[in-house]
Every structure is written in structure tokens, then in C-alpha cells.
């Protein structure tokens, strides 16, 4: 099991969600976050007004998947999130030790699906 964390541009969220849905990845947690990358928060056009400490608005996606869905998920995020400009974000993939469904107590593969 893998835990995928992606940071993307706020205006790409709809497109990324659409792509994820197209590839039948429905489980996702979305948060509004602030952050900065290599450009130290300096943005080209419209990306953000100057926020505290030059942090820019981003959207963070968190997705837990089984191994066979990792590539699809990454592809969906790249396809929906890429504009080709600086600040398109990053995807991080972590090993996921365990997953438990609260309602049934199921664990592992079954709990993610």
C-alpha cells in the first residue's frame, strides 16, 4: 500500500479530480495549504498575492492506494495538474503501513478499496 501526497496549483483541482475519477480513483482528501518551492514563493502571474512570508496558496491531495493503482494515480495528477509553468507542484509517494476502515474494522487492501 502506498500513501500519495500531491501539492498542486489551486486552479487545477477540478481537472485533477476529473482525471482521478476517470481512472476510478475515488478516495481522496483535499486541503487548502500554503507553501513554497524552489522559487521561494515568488510567483509569476496571478498565482497568489503576497501572503505571509511569501507563501503561496496550494492544494494538497492525499490518496491511499494499493500498489497496482500507484502509476494510474500519479498519471492522473500529472495530466490534470500540469500547466508547464513554475509552481505546478510535487508528488510524494510513501509506504503505507496499515489502513483500517472505522465502520467495519477491516484492514489492509480491503480497507482501502
Amino acid at each position, binding site marked *: 500500500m502506498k500513501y500519495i501526497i500531491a501539492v498542486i496549483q489551486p*486552479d487545477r483541482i*477540478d481537472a485533477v479530480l476529473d482525471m482521478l475519477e476517470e481512472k476510478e480513483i475515488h478516495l481522496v482528501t483535499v486541503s487548502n*495549504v*500554503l507553501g513554497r518551492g524552489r522559487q521561494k514563493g515568488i510567483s509569476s502571474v*496571478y498565482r*497568489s*498575492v503576497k501572503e*505571509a512570508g511569501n507563501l503561496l496558496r496550494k492544494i494538497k491531495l492525499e490518496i491511499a492506494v494499493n500498489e497496482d493503482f500507484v502509476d494510474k494515480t500519479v498519471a492522473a495528477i500529472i495530466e490534470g495538474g500540469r500547466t508547464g509553468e513554475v509552481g505546478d507542484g510535487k508528488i510524494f509517494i510513501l509506504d503505507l503501513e496499515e489502513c483500517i476502515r472505522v465502520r467495519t474494522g477491516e484492514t489492509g487492501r480491503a480497507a482501502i478499496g
Partner: protein
Amino acid sequence: MNMIKRRINQALRAAPALLAALLTAGTGYAAEGGAIDSGDTAWLLSSAGLVLLMTPGLAFFYGGLVRKKNILSVLMQCFMAMCLVTVIWFFCGYSLAFGPDVGHFIGNLSWAFLNGVGPEPNADYAATVPHLAFMAFQLKFAIITPALIIGAFAERIKFSAFCVFTALWTILVYSPVAHWVWGIGGFLRDMGAMDFAGGAVVHINAGMAALAAALILGKRVGKSAPPHNLPLAILGAGMLWFGWFGFNAGSALAANGVAATAFVTTHIASAVAGLVWSLLDWWYHKKPTTLGMITGAVAGLVAITPAAGFVTPTGAMIIGLGSAVICFISVTFVKAKFGYDDTLDAFGVHGVGGIWGSIATGFLAVSGANNQLWIQIKATAITAGFAFVASVILFKLVDMIVGLRVSEHEERIGLDLTQHRETAYTLLD
């Protein structure tokens, strides 16, 4: 060199006289009129203030209903309407709307720059208040009318396009229609059309422009989103209801029985419509929503506007009831059926509610002509037709000049950042 100096000196010598002429232009003219009544004047000036408050009220009403990335754009558009239309009204708008008649169609420009509009009453419009007070009261109507249209194109129009459209629309659509209905010599006024406080001039006019906007701009990008701050929308609706007392009761242009009638009918229609919409919501959507309640209250206010001083409290109740049912149908079913994206139901509430109120005035007005209903239908059709066609042409024109719609990329980011480089809410406090 000497000649240039001489010219400059001449110009400088002439300047004070020119300035004085401009400064006194507004005071040097007095149309024959009765004596100023302090009660009437106090009420009209207060009403003008109340009506002005409706525009920030509308800003919060609309602002709460859009997504949070667009609230500032809506607030800015409403406030810019206050600034822009005021200047246009001063330059030429008031004169075109209420100035001496040209062919029953438009006022001439002799009152441009408020020339001849002074502290003396103008007996033709309001014999007991300063002409300037009447002008100021009318100005607030001219401000809120284009602001109402914002509800149809919110979340996707360029700010530049909004400014150019509002300026042109005020001159070429609002002023003529105001002249037809309210101006001395206007052909709808002469025909006997009854419009107490702007059912045709304000609501049908803005509502049809809103329909034109929704059709021409097309749907918003992405999925429809729920209102981001309903408490703000409710605050705005409350300010609208409060300001509407100035809008309707102020339209009596005097502190008298007609004003009291309009005050009461306005309140009753709004209350009934808010109640009935809530019940419809409860029945059809299974829950009475705050959004439904305030939409209903506004629909009632819209519909009573043309009738406010002409109907009894019972008539107001019928108009309020009708407006809730008809506007509910238009917003819930008609919009879905035809698929236009009237963002905040500017057409569904103001256009449809205004048309209902104008026609209802025809059969509920206490003292109208025998064929008042037919007159109202004709006047409604003429106003609606003109407003729609003229607005379509203006939107197309503005599209050619500056482009109407923001890019898809900008729309996704939101108008606050892309049009104003500001944001209403920060993530870190």
C-alpha cells in the same frame, strides 16, 4: 514668446469667470415650483440614503452567494457602480432621463452637468422638495439597476468589460427607459403605464439585461458550487429589505399617505414572499433553506415595486404570494430546463418578479384606467423587448472592444486574484 505669454495671461484671467460660471450653473436656474416642504425633503433625502444602502446590501447578498475566490470581484463591481454611475448621472444621465423631452423618447442634454438643477423645486417632478434632492434620489436607482445585472454574469466577466458595459448601459438603456416611464413627455408615461418605484425601469430592465448576459457569456467553468458565506448573503438581503423602504415609500416623493401605503405594502409583500418560498422549499426540497427564504423575500420586494403606492395591503399580499410561486418556478424549473447560467438568479428574480409585479399592477391597482391591465402588458413587453435587444447589442459591442469573459485559467483561479490582485480570506491569521 510674448504672444504665448499673452495667451496664457488671457486664459488665466478668464479662468475664474469660467470656474464661477461652472460652479454656479447648478444654482442659477429655478423652475417654477411650490414652496419647499421640510418634511417631504427630509423624507426624500433619507430615502435617497436608504436606496444607496441597497447597493452595498446587494454586494453582500451577491458576495455571499459566489465562491470565495470571487467575493471581492462582486463587492468591487457593486461599489464601482456607485462611483461610475454617479459620474455619468452628473455628466448626462440625469438630463437624458428627466431633462426636457425629445420626441417622447429621451431627455435633451440641457441639464447635463446638472445645469439648472438646483435647490429650488421642479414642479413637474416633485413640487415640494429641492430639485437636487429629486435628482439624488433618482441617482440611487440608476446605481442599483446595473448593479442588479451583476447577479447574472458573476464569477466570469472581466472587470474592464463590466465597467464599459455599465457606463454604456446606463446612458443607452437605463436613461431612455427611465425617461419613457417617468420623464415628462415619456411615451409610456403618456400611455398611462403605472410604475410606482421602478418595476419596469429597474427590475424588468435589469432582469432582461441579466438574461442577455447569461445567454451571451455562457456557463461558468467547472461544477456549480454552493454559496461560500450564507450569513453574508442574509445580511445583504436584510440591508436590501431595509433600503427598499426608501426605494418604494420614498417614491411617493413626499412624507404622506402614499408613502405610508407604499411602506406597508412593501413590507407585507416581502414577508409573504419569504414565507411562501420557505414553504415551497420545504415541500419540494424537503428543507426550508435560508437561501430560499431570502430569495423569496427579495422576489416579493421586486414584485411589489411597480405597485407599491397603488395597491391595498391585500393586493400586496397577492403580489407577494404570486412572486414567490412564479419566481420559484422560474429559478427551479425554467432555468434548469433551458440551461442558461444565471449565476445568482438576477433574471429569475428581478426579471420574472418585475414582469409579474408590473402586470399585477394592472389588475390590483386601486385607481387605474379601465384597460390598465392591457396598458401594463404593453408597457412590460416594450420595456422587456428593448432592454433585452439593447443589452445583447451592448454586450456584443463590449466583447468586441475589450472582451467580455476572462480566460478559463483566470476563471479557475478566481476573479479576486486575476482582476484585482487581492484576496478576501487568508489561510494564515
